[in-house]
């Protein structure tokens, strides 16, 4: 989310620059490149070629670093493009024009006055990403040999362990409901539009 937001700001500062092209490419790639291909590529790069991590025999942090990197790579593009789209919309708002008229540069105005709108928009993207993180990351966990929740669910599905699957579906609903509630509360507190805050 952090890298995606920064990339979104960079894309907006230089609309036809490298950051914009890179964020666009990340979004297309996240929709069309299978996660097993990315996971194998990351495994080969960081564990075999560069040897930064030891996925199987390393410390707990080294073991989860690979799957986190893969999941983060897939989530970065959407956050960057939503940030970019929000900042483009912000620039045509009256209060942004007022900030420019008061003497702020476009970049400073985007940082100072666009931040809240960006957080509100990215909070909406965060809910499905949170749902994806609990169960949708099985491929990365399997490639890196991490015995995470997703891999456990896959095992339960393969062995038709319905008790685990039922509990998992309930947990997903509770998790998403809680996340949705928290993010709605956050949005109502920080949204700059008064009609939403009421």
């Amino acid at each position, binding site marked *: 989310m952090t890298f995606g937001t920064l990339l979104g700001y960079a894309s907006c500062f230089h609309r036809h620059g490298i950051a914009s092209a890179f964020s666009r490419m990340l979004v*297309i790639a996240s*929709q*069309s*490149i*299978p*996660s*097993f*291909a990315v996971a*194998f590529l990351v495994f*080969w790069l960081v564990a*075999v070629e560069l040897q930064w991590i030891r996925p199987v025999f390393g410390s707990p942090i080294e073991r989860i670093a690979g799957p986190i990197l893969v999941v983060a790579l897939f989530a970065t593009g959407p956050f960057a493009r939503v940030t970019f789209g929000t900042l483009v919309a912000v620039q045509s708002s009256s209060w942004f024009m007022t900030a420019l008229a008061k003497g702020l540069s476009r970049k400073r105005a985007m940082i100072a006055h666009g931040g809240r709108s960006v957080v509100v928009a990215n909070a909406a993207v965060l809910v*499905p990403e949170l*749902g*994806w993180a609990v*169960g*949708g990351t*099985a*491929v990365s966990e*399997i*490639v890196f040999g991490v015995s995470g929740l997703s891999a456990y*669910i*896959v095992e*339960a*599905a*393969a062995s*038709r362990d*319905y008790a685990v*699957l039922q509990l998992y*579906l309930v947990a*997903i*609903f509770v998790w*998403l*409901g809680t996340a*949705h509630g928290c993010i709605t509360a956050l949005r109502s507190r920080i949204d700059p539009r008064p009609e939403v805050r009421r």
Partner: protein
Amino acid sequence: MPAKRHALSLLVVAGLVALLLLAARGSDPHAIDLLRALEPPSLAQPFGTDHLGRSIAVRLADGLWRTLAVLFLLTAVAIPAGFALGFLAIFGSEAISRFAICFARAGVAVPTFILALAATAVFGLSPVSVGIAIGVAAAAQYTLLAAELGRTALKEHFVLASVALGVSPVGIAIRHVLPTIAPVLRRHLSTDLARAVVAYAGLAFIGLGADTGRSDWGAMAWEYRAWVFEAPWLLFGPAAAVGVLAGGLSYAMDD
């Protein structure tokens, strides 16, 4: 110009699919030839052969049919169900409208991959089970889209005129609302089809009901993962097939 470009890209994707199917015509994807094991890509074998001497190109073509079946089922389930529930939400009584919207919101809440995973656990991994599960998840999204876009379309003057002339709700839905919301839904379908290709490959990769004889692209990647350093072309074929089909569909159908 963009329309021409997209038509051209659609033709390119269709051409690649046709070439793959033609190359594999009449060949057995399960034919084992140990004397030709792990052959690198060549003119005769564009994607090489695997550890059992099976042609990767022929297996990819076999897997393509299974993936296309998922896409067909997704479209066949999601579009009619989404439209029907969306129009019920617009034209139905308050109770029916609430039910349709609640169903759709509940469906949208659960990530598609997880719903497909649960369906696979119950019915086993097949193009039919995955296609229907992803189709049901997508139907929820189409319901919300059709309801929201349809309500906006109902405010148009020409629709209001039709209502005043006494056209039935079904007539209004088919003649006015459907053509108005179709372009938006087509764009949405383009991303859904791409996601379905990737999701099916992911489900097959994690090996639910694993059967190494199956030519699903994800299952092939799972089977060939042990040769990732020795014979990387084994993994290139399935990954490229998923990427080209998903990316091509997304690009060709979007504006």
